[in-house]
Structure formats: structure tokens, C-alpha cells
């Protein structure tokens, strides 16, 4: 419960934040703190300087453009995502996933940017952001750059955000008529997900475009390319969805932990993938709690 000594600063602007981060290799961004503070409490890791960006106006806006694309400030809380009307119109899935994330208390403080930067294999947004083809906007001394979600997640608790950089925003392309599915499995209501799957399927019939992404099965979200190419050009059928499962986990060897063996996790990833694709095809839909 008791953190190691650390320093704290709450910069007034993004520029100041970048300066603070640049000045100290041991500095880290503190947003909602709903993951970071717990890690520090157990002294599993320590941080020299916490740079609190949670109140930076530049990081807290939700802008939905006329074309249906959205730009979400990295320090936007789950609660804000859950209640954003524009986002509900453009990308309802973002709010739905937010609404099922952990609990009210965490949703009031936790941020989508923090979730992405935590980059835990069990985190809820990474697979979804990859499936939606999101771009992540990173600012640093060198200016601002955009990284595709697929290239953003480098490994467990590591992302493309380098030393001295800050994740500023998450940009979502317009959904058009595409369907999105998101599925997640936990042992209990408040536990780590064992398997997650997100699916994005274009409006065409036969299917013209698809992205299927798994979570919890490796250090980073895993793109199920085999499923995607099988789906594209095929019918929007329940059978297509059912077949997606086995195909999605081909060649995967997920890790084991106290909650699930790798084998079970693999089997569940297949089930979640099939269901998510089914949801994206509009065959079924479930709004479930999706754990931590």
C-alpha cells in the first residue's frame, strides 16, 4: 500500500509535460493511475517522477468530424467515453467497452490512453483499437507523429511511446457501414480477461473488408489474418463466423497463468473470435462486462 519515494509534477501544458518527461529518463506519465498506482503500491516498479497529464485540456477532448471519424484525447476517462453522445453515434463500441470496464470508480479515473499505454495483454482496448484501424498520436520534443494501432503495441507493458513522449490522442477512422463485434471472457465479474476478440467487418455482401484481432493470447494484440482473408469475398453467414474461431487461433501458443492454461486460453480465444465475428456480421450482439 505504501509507494517508494517518488516525485510528482502536474504541468500546465502539453509542452511542459514533454519537457518534464524529456528531462528525466526515470519519469513516467501519470494519467488516471488506475493501473500504475497499484504497481507502485506493490513496489513491483518505481518511478522517479510522475508527470500528471490527467488535467491537460489538450488530452481531454472528444471530437467527432462530419465524416464520422473521431479523435479522442488520451486522458479521456472511461466514464466520459461511456456518456459521449457524438461517440455513441460514430463508434458506439468504444462507449460500450468503456461501460463494461472494471467498475464505476475505475471508470471515473481510468483513461483510454492509459489503457493503451499500459498495454497489458489482458487490457480491453488494444485489440479493439487494432480492429478499428485506429491511429495513435504521440507527441515529443521532435513534434507529433501518428502510429497505427497495429504498430503501437510492442510488447508487454511496452508501446511505441518513447522516452520523453506522451500519447496525445487516439484517432478512429469512420466506421462507414462496418459492423463491429467485441467479446471477452472472465472467470468472475472482477477478474482479468482470459480471452478477448474484436472484429471489424465491412458492410459489403459478399464481405469486402475485415479485421479480426485477439487479446490475452500473446504480449500484444494478435491480428488473425487467416480469418480475415477467409472472410473477405465470402458470405455474411453464421457458418463463416463459426469457422472463424478455429482459424483465428491456428499456430497460437498463448501463455498459462493461475487463471487459465495456455490450451484453454487458446480454445476460448477461438470461441470469442467466432462470437465477435458473428456480432460484427450482425448475427448476434452481446454487451458484456469485460473485466479489468
Amino acid at each position: 500500500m505504501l509507494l517508494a519515494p517518488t516525485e510528482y509534477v502536474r504541468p500546465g501544458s502539453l509542452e511542459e509535460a514533454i519537457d518534464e518527461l524529456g528531462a528525466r529518463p526515470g519519469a513516467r506519465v501519470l494519467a488516471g493511475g488506475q493501473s500504475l498506482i497499484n504497481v507502485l503500491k506493490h513496489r513491483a516498479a518505481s518511478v522517479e517522477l510522475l508527470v500528471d497529464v490527467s488535467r491537460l485540456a489538450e488530452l481531454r477532448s472528444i471530437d467527432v468530424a462530419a465524416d464520422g471519424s473521431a479523435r479522442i484525447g488520451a486522458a479521456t476517462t472511461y466514464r466520459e467515453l461511456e456518456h459521449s453522445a457524438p461517440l455513441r453515434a460514430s463508434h458506439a463500441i468504444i462507449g460500450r467497452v468503456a461501460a463494461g470496464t472494471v467498475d464505476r470508480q475505475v471508470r471515473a479515473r481510468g483513461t483510454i490512453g492509459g489503457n493503451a499505454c499500459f498495454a497489458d495483454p489482458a487490457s480491453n482496448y488494444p485489440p479493439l483499437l487494432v480492429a478499428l484501424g485506429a491511429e495513435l498520436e504521440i507527441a515529443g520534443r521532435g513534434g507529433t507523429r501518428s502510429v497505427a494501432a497495429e504498430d503501437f503495441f510492442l510488447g508487454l507493458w511496452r508501446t511505441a511511446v518513447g522516452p520523453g513522449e506522451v500519447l496525445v490522442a487516439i484517432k478512429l477512422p469512420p466506421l462507414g457501414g462496418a459492423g463491429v463485434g467485441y467479446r471477452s471472457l472472465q472467470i468472475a465479474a472482477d477478474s482479468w480477461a482470459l480471452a478477448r476478440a474484436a472484429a471489424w467487418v465491412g458492410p459489403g455482401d459478399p464481405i469486402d473488408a475485415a479485421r479480426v484481432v485477439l487479446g490475452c493470447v500473446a504480449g500484444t494484440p494478435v491480428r488473425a489474418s487467416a480469418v480475415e482473408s477467409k472472410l473477405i469475398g465470402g458470405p455474411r453467414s453464421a457458418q463463416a463466423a463459426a469457422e472463424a474461431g478455429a482459424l483465428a487461433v491456428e499456430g497460437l501458443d498463448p501463455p498459462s497463468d493461475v487463471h487459465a492454461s495456455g490450451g484453454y486460453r487458446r480454445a476460448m480465444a477461438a470461441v470469442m473470435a467466432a462470437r465477435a465475428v458473428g456480432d460484427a456480421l450482425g448475427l448476434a450482439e452481446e454487451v458484456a462486462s469485460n473485466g479489468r
Partner: protein
Amino acid sequence: MSAVSGSSTVAADRERLWQVLSDPAALGATLPGVDDVFVEDATHFSALARPATALGETRIHMDFEILEERSGEYVRIAGSGRAGENRVELNIELHLADAPSGGTAVSWRGDLTLRGVLNSLMQRGASAIFNEQVEAVLAAGAAGGS
């Protein structure tokens, strides 16, 4: 206890890479997140490793012993250390071979054991972080060697 393994191909040629890898002091100097490298003798050295993630750094004081080596191709290392009240134990072997397309192909395999509450907290991630550290060492070795 979790198994660790991986492989990567680095630009440096085998002899040069080996030279750097087998010189902890020089290596330590070029390594990100490794300080206080102290070489006791030909087979014993210690270091403060600070694997860095988005969540900060975990400071691990490690003592290493080179158990077996065949110059330029193979080394087996045992390490033990502590992170706060937790303990870390490590057994790893590295194989070096000339990569067909030039450079050196390195593969490693071993096991990593965390003991203490850290083990419960890091069970999903310890081996992944370790493998990334090895890649960092090789990269640094390659850099030092090229």
C-alpha cells in the same frame, strides 16, 4: 518458474559479438538500463538491472556466474538477485551461429523464477520482459561490435 526462450539475428559477425558479450564491463557500459556492472573474475560479475516498462523500472541487483562457455558459440549463465524483498533466479544458455544472410543468429533458452509477491504480480509478464532484455543485450552487443 517460467520458461524463457527466443532467437534473433544481429548485424555484428560472430567473433566480434562474442567479444563484446564476453566482456560484461564493456557490455554494461553500452546497455540501456544496466548500471554498476562489477566484474569479480573471469566467471563472476554483478549488475544492477533496471528493466523499464510503461509502468516504471524494476531495480534488480543480480549476481551472474558463467557456468560454461565455448568461445564464439555457446555460453551458459546462472544469475540470482533480489528486487526489494523478492528474489529472482535465472538459468540461460545462448547459442551463437553464423546467420546464412550474414551477421549472427543467436538463440537462447532457459528458465526464470521470481519469488515473493512480485511473482504473483508479474506472472503474466516476467518471461516476456526478460526476453526483451536479452534482445536489448544483443542489440547493444551488436552495436558495440559493429
